[in-house]
Protein backbone atom coordinates (compact mmCIF):
# COMPACT_ATOMS: atom_id res chain seq x y z
CA UNK A 1 0.00 0.00 0.00
CA UNK A 2 1.33 3.38 -1.01
CA UNK A 3 -0.21 5.77 1.49
CA UNK A 4 1.22 8.87 -0.15
CA UNK A 5 -0.63 7.94 -3.29
CA UNK A 6 -3.82 7.48 -1.31
CA UNK A 7 -3.39 10.83 0.43
CA UNK A 8 -2.76 12.53 -2.89
CA UNK A 9 -5.81 11.12 -4.68
CA UNK A 10 -8.38 11.03 -1.90
CA UNK A 11 -9.73 14.48 -2.94
CA UNK A 12 -10.65 13.05 -6.35
CA UNK A 13 -12.75 10.41 -4.64
CA UNK A 14 -14.36 12.98 -2.37
CA UNK A 15 -15.42 15.06 -5.37
CA UNK A 16 -16.71 11.97 -7.15
CA UNK A 17 -18.54 10.77 -4.05
CA UNK A 18 -20.24 14.16 -3.70
CA UNK A 19 -21.36 13.91 -7.32
CA UNK A 20 -22.67 10.38 -6.76
CA UNK A 21 -24.55 11.43 -3.63
CA UNK A 22 -25.98 14.52 -5.31
CA UNK A 23 -27.27 12.67 -8.37
CA UNK A 24 -28.51 9.77 -6.26
CA UNK A 25 -30.42 12.04 -3.89
CA UNK A 26 -32.02 14.06 -6.70
CA UNK A 27 -32.86 10.90 -8.65
CA UNK A 28 -34.19 9.02 -5.65
CA UNK A 29 -36.33 11.92 -4.41
CA UNK A 30 -37.94 12.30 -7.83
CA UNK A 31 -38.44 8.56 -8.15
CA UNK A 32 -40.12 8.40 -4.73
CA UNK A 33 -42.63 11.04 -5.81
CA UNK A 34 -43.05 9.44 -9.23
CA UNK A 35 -43.46 6.00 -7.70
CA UNK A 36 -46.02 7.28 -5.21
CA UNK A 37 -47.96 8.89 -8.05
CA UNK A 38 -47.82 5.69 -10.13
CA UNK A 39 -48.93 3.52 -7.25
CA UNK A 40 -51.87 5.80 -6.45
CA UNK A 41 -52.95 5.79 -10.11
CA UNK A 42 -52.77 1.98 -10.14
CA UNK A 43 -54.53 1.68 -6.81
CA UNK A 44 -57.53 3.71 -7.91
CA UNK A 45 -57.43 2.20 -11.43
CA UNK A 46 -57.65 5.54 -13.19
CA UNK A 47 -58.65 4.52 -16.74
CA UNK A 48 -56.02 4.41 -19.54
CA UNK A 49 -53.35 5.89 -17.27
CA UNK A 50 -53.15 2.81 -15.12
CA UNK A 51 -52.71 0.59 -18.19
CA UNK A 52 -49.85 2.81 -19.35
CA UNK A 53 -48.26 2.63 -15.94
CA UNK A 54 -48.54 -1.16 -15.89
CA UNK A 55 -46.64 -1.26 -19.18
CA UNK A 56 -44.05 1.21 -17.91
CA UNK A 57 -43.46 -0.77 -14.72
CA UNK A 58 -42.98 -4.06 -16.56
CA UNK A 59 -40.63 -2.42 -19.07
CA UNK A 60 -38.50 -0.72 -16.49
CA UNK A 61 -38.33 -3.61 -14.04
CA UNK A 62 -37.28 -6.12 -16.68
CA UNK A 63 -34.45 -4.21 -18.32
CA UNK A 64 -31.06 -3.23 -16.90
CA UNK A 65 -30.24 0.38 -16.05
CA UNK A 66 -27.13 0.28 -18.22
CA UNK A 67 -29.18 -0.37 -21.37
CA UNK A 68 -31.69 2.32 -20.42
CA UNK A 69 -28.81 4.77 -20.01
CA UNK A 70 -27.17 3.74 -23.30
CA UNK A 71 -30.47 4.26 -25.06
CA UNK A 72 -30.91 7.70 -23.49
CA UNK A 73 -27.32 8.79 -23.96
CA UNK A 74 -26.35 7.30 -27.35
CA UNK A 75 -29.73 6.51 -28.91
CA UNK A 76 -31.85 9.58 -28.30
CA UNK A 77 -29.39 12.12 -29.80
CA UNK A 78 -29.93 10.37 -33.14
CA UNK A 79 -33.59 11.30 -32.85
CA UNK A 80 -32.60 14.89 -32.09
CA UNK A 81 -32.96 14.78 -28.29
CA UNK A 82 -29.60 15.58 -26.73
CA UNK A 83 -29.32 15.14 -22.96
CA UNK A 84 -26.28 16.00 -20.86
CA UNK A 85 -24.73 13.10 -18.95
CA UNK A 86 -26.14 14.39 -15.71
CA UNK A 87 -29.72 14.75 -16.98
CA UNK A 88 -29.35 11.39 -18.59
CA UNK A 89 -28.22 9.79 -15.36
CA UNK A 90 -31.06 11.32 -13.37
CA UNK A 91 -33.64 10.41 -16.02
CA UNK A 92 -32.36 6.84 -16.09
CA UNK A 93 -32.42 6.57 -12.32
CA UNK A 94 -35.97 7.93 -12.14
CA UNK A 95 -37.11 5.62 -14.95
CA UNK A 96 -35.75 2.63 -13.05
CA UNK A 97 -36.45 3.82 -9.51
CA UNK A 98 -40.01 4.98 -10.18
CA UNK A 99 -41.21 1.47 -10.91
CA UNK A 100 -39.39 -0.07 -7.93
CA UNK A 101 -40.82 2.56 -5.60
CA UNK A 102 -44.28 2.11 -7.13
CA UNK A 103 -44.11 -1.62 -6.40
CA UNK A 104 -42.97 -0.93 -2.83
CA UNK A 105 -45.86 1.47 -2.20
CA UNK A 106 -48.31 -0.85 -3.94
CA UNK A 107 -47.57 -3.65 -1.49
CA UNK A 108 -48.23 -1.16 1.32
CA UNK A 109 -51.47 0.07 -0.25
CA UNK A 110 -52.74 -3.45 -0.83
CA UNK A 111 -52.16 -4.27 2.82
CA UNK A 112 -54.75 -1.66 3.83
CA UNK A 113 -58.04 -3.45 4.04
CA UNK A 114 -61.23 -2.22 2.41
CA UNK A 115 -62.78 -1.93 5.84
CA UNK A 116 -60.43 0.94 6.64
CA UNK A 117 -61.52 2.90 3.58
CA UNK A 118 -65.20 2.14 4.14
CA UNK A 119 -64.95 3.10 7.79
CA UNK A 120 -63.36 6.40 6.77
CA UNK A 121 -66.04 7.09 4.16
CA UNK A 122 -68.85 6.22 6.55
CA UNK A 123 -67.42 8.68 9.06
CA UNK A 124 -68.05 11.35 6.44
CA UNK A 125 -64.48 11.90 5.21
CA UNK A 126 -64.11 12.77 1.56
CA UNK A 127 -62.22 10.44 -0.74
CA UNK A 128 -59.09 12.61 -0.72
CA UNK A 129 -59.21 12.87 3.08
CA UNK A 130 -59.40 9.09 3.29
CA UNK A 131 -56.29 8.85 1.13
CA UNK A 132 -54.36 11.50 3.04
CA UNK A 133 -55.25 10.62 6.62
CA UNK A 134 -56.01 6.91 6.56
CA UNK A 135 -54.56 5.07 3.60
CA UNK A 136 -51.22 6.80 2.97
CA UNK A 137 -49.87 6.97 6.54
CA UNK A 138 -50.47 3.27 7.09
CA UNK A 139 -49.35 2.25 3.61
CA UNK A 140 -46.10 4.18 3.88
CA UNK A 141 -45.17 2.69 7.22
CA UNK A 142 -45.88 -0.82 5.91
CA UNK A 143 -43.78 -0.24 2.80
CA UNK A 144 -40.74 1.16 4.65
CA UNK A 145 -38.66 -2.07 4.48
CA UNK A 146 -39.17 -2.44 0.73
CA UNK A 147 -38.65 1.28 0.32
CA UNK A 148 -35.32 1.33 2.17
CA UNK A 149 -34.09 -1.71 0.25
CA UNK A 150 -34.88 0.21 -2.93
CA UNK A 151 -32.94 3.28 -1.80
CA UNK A 152 -29.83 1.17 -1.18
CA UNK A 153 -30.38 -0.64 -4.46
CA UNK A 154 -30.66 2.63 -6.40
CA UNK A 155 -27.52 4.09 -4.82
CA UNK A 156 -25.70 0.92 -5.83
CA UNK A 157 -27.05 1.27 -9.34
CA UNK A 158 -25.45 4.72 -9.64
CA UNK A 159 -22.14 2.91 -10.13
CA UNK A 160 -22.99 2.39 -13.81
CA UNK A 161 -23.10 6.13 -14.47
CA UNK A 162 -19.43 6.01 -15.45
CA UNK A 163 -20.66 4.43 -18.68
CA UNK A 164 -22.36 7.69 -19.74
CA UNK A 165 -19.22 9.74 -19.10
CA UNK A 166 -20.03 11.00 -15.64
CA UNK A 167 -16.99 11.42 -13.40
CA UNK A 168 -18.28 9.27 -10.57
CA UNK A 169 -16.40 6.93 -8.22
CA UNK A 170 -16.07 4.13 -10.77
CA UNK A 171 -14.80 6.49 -13.42
CA UNK A 172 -12.14 7.97 -11.11
CA UNK A 173 -11.08 4.47 -10.08
CA UNK A 174 -10.83 3.30 -13.66
CA UNK A 175 -8.77 6.36 -14.60
CA UNK A 176 -6.34 5.94 -11.71
CA UNK A 177 -5.87 2.24 -12.46
CA UNK A 178 -5.22 3.05 -16.08
CA UNK A 179 -2.89 5.99 -15.40
CA UNK A 180 -0.71 4.80 -12.52
CA UNK A 181 -1.36 1.05 -12.27
CA UNK A 182 -1.88 1.48 -8.51
CA UNK A 183 -4.65 -1.11 -8.52
CA UNK A 184 -4.63 -2.05 -4.83
CA UNK A 185 -4.67 1.51 -3.51
CA UNK A 186 -7.33 2.62 -5.97
CA UNK A 187 -9.62 -0.30 -5.29
CA UNK A 188 -9.12 0.21 -1.56
CA UNK A 189 -10.28 3.82 -1.90
CA UNK A 190 -13.17 2.77 -4.13
CA UNK A 191 -14.43 0.15 -1.70
CA UNK A 192 -14.04 2.50 1.27
CA UNK A 193 -15.95 5.27 -0.51
CA UNK A 194 -18.92 3.01 -1.14
CA UNK A 195 -18.74 1.65 2.41
CA UNK A 196 -18.72 5.19 3.81
CA UNK A 197 -21.75 6.13 1.72
CA UNK A 198 -23.80 2.96 2.12
CA UNK A 199 -22.96 1.44 5.48
CA UNK A 200 -24.39 4.24 7.69
CA UNK A 201 -27.48 4.33 5.50
CA UNK A 202 -27.98 0.59 5.76
CA UNK A 203 -27.56 0.68 9.55
CA UNK A 204 -29.96 3.60 9.85
CA UNK A 205 -32.59 1.79 7.81
CA UNK A 206 -32.21 -1.34 9.93
CA UNK A 207 -32.81 0.73 13.07
CA UNK A 208 -35.85 2.46 11.56
CA UNK A 209 -37.32 -0.87 10.51
CA UNK A 210 -36.79 -2.32 13.97
CA UNK A 211 -38.55 0.66 15.51
CA UNK A 212 -41.48 0.39 13.14
CA UNK A 213 -41.84 -3.31 13.79
CA UNK A 214 -41.71 -2.59 17.50
CA UNK A 215 -44.53 -0.09 17.04
CA UNK A 216 -46.48 -2.70 15.07
CA UNK A 217 -46.54 -5.10 18.00
CA UNK A 218 -48.61 -2.57 19.96
CA UNK A 219 -51.71 -3.28 17.90
Amino acid at each position, binding site marked *: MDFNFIREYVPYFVVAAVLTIRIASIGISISILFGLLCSIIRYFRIPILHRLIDIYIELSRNTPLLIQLFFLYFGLPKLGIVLSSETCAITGLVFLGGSYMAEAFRSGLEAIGNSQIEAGLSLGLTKSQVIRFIVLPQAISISIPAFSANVIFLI*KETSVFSAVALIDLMNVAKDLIGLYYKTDETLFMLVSSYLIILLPLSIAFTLIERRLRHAGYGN
Partner: protein
Amino acid sequence: MQDMGIEVLFQGRNFVRLLEGLWVTVRISVFSVIVSTLLGIILGMIMTMKNPLLRIITRCYLEFVRIMPQLVLLFLVYFGLTKMFRINLSGEISAIIVFVIWGTAEMGDLVRGALTSIPVHQYESGKALGLTTVQNYCYVIIPQTIRRLLPQAINLVTRMIKTTSLIVLIGVVEVVKVGQQIIEASRLTSPSAAVWVYGVIFFLYFIVCYPISILSKRLEVKWRN
Protein backbone atom coordinates in the same frame (compact mmCIF):
# COMPACT_ATOMS: atom_id res chain seq x y z
CA MET B 1 -35.85 10.73 -44.14
CA GLN B 2 -33.45 9.02 -46.53
CA ASP B 3 -31.92 6.94 -43.74
CA MET B 4 -33.78 5.43 -40.84
CA GLY B 5 -30.94 3.29 -39.59
CA ILE B 6 -33.19 0.33 -38.93
CA GLU B 7 -31.93 -1.58 -41.95
CA VAL B 8 -28.58 -1.96 -40.18
CA LEU B 9 -30.16 -4.63 -38.01
CA PHE B 10 -30.89 -6.81 -41.01
CA GLN B 11 -27.63 -6.33 -42.86
CA GLY B 12 -25.46 -9.41 -43.00
CA ARG B 13 -25.50 -11.37 -39.78
CA ASN B 14 -26.08 -8.40 -37.50
CA PHE B 15 -29.25 -9.62 -35.87
CA VAL B 16 -27.92 -13.14 -35.43
CA ARG B 17 -24.76 -11.67 -33.88
CA LEU B 18 -26.87 -9.74 -31.38
CA LEU B 19 -28.66 -12.94 -30.45
CA GLU B 20 -25.32 -14.70 -30.06
CA GLY B 21 -24.25 -11.90 -27.74
CA LEU B 22 -27.44 -12.36 -25.75
CA TRP B 23 -26.64 -16.06 -25.51
CA VAL B 24 -23.30 -15.19 -23.84
CA THR B 25 -25.19 -13.08 -21.30
CA VAL B 26 -27.77 -15.77 -20.62
CA ARG B 27 -25.10 -18.48 -20.44
CA ILE B 28 -23.08 -16.62 -17.83
CA SER B 29 -26.15 -15.87 -15.72
CA VAL B 30 -27.64 -19.38 -15.94
CA PHE B 31 -24.32 -20.94 -14.98
CA SER B 32 -23.90 -18.53 -12.05
CA VAL B 33 -27.48 -19.09 -10.95
CA ILE B 34 -27.05 -22.86 -10.80
CA VAL B 35 -23.77 -22.70 -8.86
CA SER B 36 -24.95 -19.99 -6.52
CA THR B 37 -28.23 -21.79 -5.81
CA LEU B 38 -26.31 -24.85 -4.63
CA LEU B 39 -23.84 -22.81 -2.58
CA GLY B 40 -26.61 -20.52 -1.34
CA ILE B 41 -28.62 -23.42 0.09
CA ILE B 42 -25.54 -24.53 2.04
CA LEU B 43 -24.87 -20.96 3.19
CA GLY B 44 -28.48 -20.51 4.24
CA MET B 45 -28.33 -23.67 6.34
CA ILE B 46 -25.07 -22.54 7.95
CA MET B 47 -26.69 -19.20 8.76
CA THR B 48 -29.50 -20.84 10.70
CA MET B 49 -26.99 -22.66 12.95
CA LYS B 50 -26.44 -21.38 16.43
CA ASN B 51 -22.63 -21.20 16.25
CA PRO B 52 -21.76 -17.53 16.98
CA LEU B 53 -18.43 -17.54 15.10
CA LEU B 54 -20.03 -18.92 11.92
CA ARG B 55 -22.81 -16.42 12.33
CA ILE B 56 -20.45 -13.45 12.46
CA ILE B 57 -18.42 -14.65 9.49
CA THR B 58 -21.46 -15.29 7.28
CA ARG B 59 -23.04 -12.03 8.38
CA CYS B 60 -19.92 -10.02 7.43
CA TYR B 61 -19.70 -11.77 4.06
CA LEU B 62 -23.37 -11.14 3.38
CA GLU B 63 -23.30 -7.49 4.37
CA PHE B 64 -20.14 -6.75 2.40
CA VAL B 65 -21.34 -8.40 -0.77
CA ARG B 66 -24.81 -6.89 -0.58
CA ILE B 67 -23.62 -3.39 0.15
CA MET B 68 -21.04 -3.23 -2.65
CA PRO B 69 -22.33 -2.33 -6.09
CA GLN B 70 -21.87 -5.32 -8.41
CA LEU B 71 -19.69 -3.21 -10.66
CA VAL B 72 -17.28 -2.62 -7.76
CA LEU B 73 -17.15 -6.38 -7.15
CA LEU B 74 -16.39 -6.89 -10.83
CA PHE B 75 -13.55 -4.37 -10.60
CA LEU B 76 -12.24 -6.01 -7.44
CA VAL B 77 -12.03 -9.38 -9.13
CA TYR B 78 -11.07 -8.28 -12.63
CA PHE B 79 -8.41 -5.75 -11.66
CA GLY B 80 -7.66 -6.45 -7.99
CA LEU B 81 -7.55 -10.23 -7.78
CA THR B 82 -5.55 -10.59 -10.95
CA LYS B 83 -2.90 -8.19 -9.73
CA MET B 84 -2.80 -9.52 -6.19
CA PHE B 85 -2.30 -13.15 -7.15
CA ARG B 86 -0.56 -12.51 -10.48
CA ILE B 87 -3.06 -14.62 -12.39
CA ASN B 88 -4.71 -13.92 -15.68
CA LEU B 89 -8.49 -14.10 -15.48
CA SER B 90 -10.55 -13.49 -18.59
CA GLY B 91 -13.47 -11.13 -18.27
CA GLU B 92 -15.95 -13.97 -18.57
CA ILE B 93 -14.33 -16.02 -15.78
CA SER B 94 -14.17 -13.03 -13.43
CA ALA B 95 -17.80 -12.24 -14.23
CA ILE B 96 -18.78 -15.78 -13.26
CA ILE B 97 -16.74 -15.56 -10.04
CA VAL B 98 -18.43 -12.29 -9.09
CA PHE B 99 -21.92 -13.51 -9.90
CA VAL B 100 -21.37 -16.70 -7.93
CA ILE B 101 -20.10 -14.73 -4.92
CA TRP B 102 -22.96 -12.27 -5.14
CA GLY B 103 -25.63 -14.85 -5.99
CA THR B 104 -24.54 -17.10 -3.12
CA ALA B 105 -24.96 -14.24 -0.68
CA GLU B 106 -28.40 -13.30 -2.00
CA MET B 107 -29.53 -16.90 -2.23
CA GLY B 108 -28.18 -17.70 1.22
CA ASP B 109 -30.23 -14.89 2.69
CA LEU B 110 -33.36 -16.08 0.88
CA VAL B 111 -32.84 -19.64 2.13
CA ARG B 112 -32.23 -18.40 5.65
CA GLY B 113 -35.39 -16.29 5.49
CA ALA B 114 -37.43 -19.23 4.18
CA LEU B 115 -36.09 -21.63 6.82
CA THR B 116 -36.63 -19.29 9.74
CA SER B 117 -40.12 -18.35 8.52
CA ILE B 118 -41.29 -21.93 9.10
CA PRO B 119 -42.92 -21.78 12.55
CA VAL B 120 -41.44 -24.01 15.26
CA HIS B 121 -44.76 -25.79 15.73
CA GLN B 122 -44.35 -27.33 12.26
CA TYR B 123 -41.17 -29.08 13.39
CA GLU B 124 -42.74 -30.05 16.69
CA SER B 125 -46.05 -31.34 15.34
CA GLY B 126 -44.11 -33.44 12.85
CA LYS B 127 -42.17 -34.93 15.70
CA ALA B 128 -45.31 -35.41 17.78
CA LEU B 129 -46.87 -37.39 14.92
CA GLY B 130 -43.95 -39.77 15.18
CA LEU B 131 -42.06 -38.77 12.03
CA THR B 132 -38.32 -39.33 12.05
CA THR B 133 -36.07 -36.30 11.50
CA VAL B 134 -35.54 -37.27 7.86
CA GLN B 135 -39.26 -37.78 7.27
CA ASN B 136 -40.01 -34.55 9.06
CA TYR B 137 -37.70 -32.64 6.69
CA CYS B 138 -38.82 -34.48 3.55
CA TYR B 139 -42.56 -34.25 4.07
CA VAL B 140 -43.08 -31.20 6.25
CA ILE B 141 -40.27 -28.68 6.25
CA ILE B 142 -38.69 -28.82 2.79
CA PRO B 143 -41.95 -28.63 0.77
CA GLN B 144 -42.95 -25.53 2.73
CA THR B 145 -39.50 -23.99 2.40
CA ILE B 146 -39.50 -24.51 -1.36
CA ARG B 147 -42.87 -22.80 -1.69
CA ARG B 148 -41.59 -19.75 0.09
CA LEU B 149 -38.22 -19.83 -1.61
CA LEU B 150 -38.94 -20.55 -5.26
CA PRO B 151 -40.71 -17.32 -6.32
CA GLN B 152 -37.94 -15.19 -4.83
CA ALA B 153 -35.24 -17.44 -6.23
CA ILE B 154 -36.74 -17.08 -9.71
CA ASN B 155 -36.83 -13.35 -9.18
CA LEU B 156 -33.11 -13.50 -8.40
CA VAL B 157 -32.56 -15.05 -11.84
CA THR B 158 -34.00 -11.98 -13.57
CA ARG B 159 -31.92 -9.71 -11.36
CA MET B 160 -28.86 -11.69 -12.31
CA ILE B 161 -29.62 -11.50 -16.03
CA LYS B 162 -30.11 -7.75 -15.72
CA THR B 163 -26.89 -7.34 -13.77
CA THR B 164 -24.89 -9.29 -16.34
CA SER B 165 -25.28 -6.26 -18.61
CA LEU B 166 -22.49 -4.72 -16.50
CA ILE B 167 -19.89 -7.16 -17.76
CA VAL B 168 -19.53 -5.16 -20.94
CA LEU B 169 -17.65 -2.64 -18.77
CA ILE B 170 -14.91 -5.19 -18.01
CA GLY B 171 -14.56 -6.08 -21.64
CA VAL B 172 -16.63 -9.22 -22.13
CA VAL B 173 -18.06 -9.45 -25.62
CA GLU B 174 -21.76 -9.91 -25.00
CA VAL B 175 -24.94 -8.39 -26.41
CA VAL B 176 -24.11 -4.76 -25.58
CA LYS B 177 -20.58 -5.03 -26.94
CA VAL B 178 -21.83 -6.61 -30.15
CA GLY B 179 -24.32 -3.76 -30.40
CA GLN B 180 -21.52 -1.24 -30.03
CA GLN B 181 -19.50 -3.02 -32.70
CA ILE B 182 -22.44 -2.90 -35.09
CA ILE B 183 -22.94 0.80 -34.39
CA GLU B 184 -19.25 1.53 -34.95
CA ALA B 185 -19.09 -0.53 -38.12
CA SER B 186 -22.00 1.31 -39.68
CA ARG B 187 -21.05 4.74 -38.33
CA LEU B 188 -20.61 6.15 -41.87
CA THR B 189 -23.31 4.29 -43.75
CA SER B 190 -26.12 4.83 -41.25
CA PRO B 191 -25.30 7.25 -38.42
CA SER B 192 -28.58 6.79 -36.59
CA ALA B 193 -28.13 3.06 -36.02
CA ALA B 194 -27.52 3.63 -32.28
CA VAL B 195 -31.15 4.28 -31.46
CA TRP B 196 -32.28 1.08 -33.17
CA VAL B 197 -29.53 -1.12 -31.86
CA TYR B 198 -29.93 -0.01 -28.26
CA GLY B 199 -33.69 -0.16 -28.64
CA VAL B 200 -33.46 -3.76 -29.83
CA ILE B 201 -31.09 -4.68 -26.98
CA PHE B 202 -33.53 -3.08 -24.54
CA PHE B 203 -36.34 -5.28 -25.85
CA LEU B 204 -34.13 -8.37 -25.99
CA TYR B 205 -33.50 -8.03 -22.26
CA PHE B 206 -37.20 -7.44 -21.73
CA ILE B 207 -38.15 -10.53 -23.73
CA VAL B 208 -35.76 -12.65 -21.68
CA CYS B 209 -36.69 -11.28 -18.25
CA TYR B 210 -40.44 -10.71 -18.60
CA PRO B 211 -41.56 -14.37 -18.80
CA ILE B 212 -39.33 -15.24 -15.85
CA SER B 213 -40.73 -12.48 -13.67
CA ILE B 214 -44.30 -13.40 -14.70
CA LEU B 215 -43.57 -16.98 -13.61
CA SER B 216 -42.23 -15.74 -10.30
CA LYS B 217 -45.32 -13.60 -9.71
CA ARG B 218 -47.68 -16.46 -10.62
CA LEU B 219 -45.98 -18.86 -8.24
CA GLU B 220 -46.03 -16.28 -5.47
CA VAL B 221 -49.78 -15.77 -5.81
CA LYS B 222 -50.44 -19.49 -6.16
CA TRP B 223 -48.42 -20.50 -3.10
CA ARG B 224 -49.30 -17.56 -0.88
CA ASN B 225 -50.76 -19.76 1.84
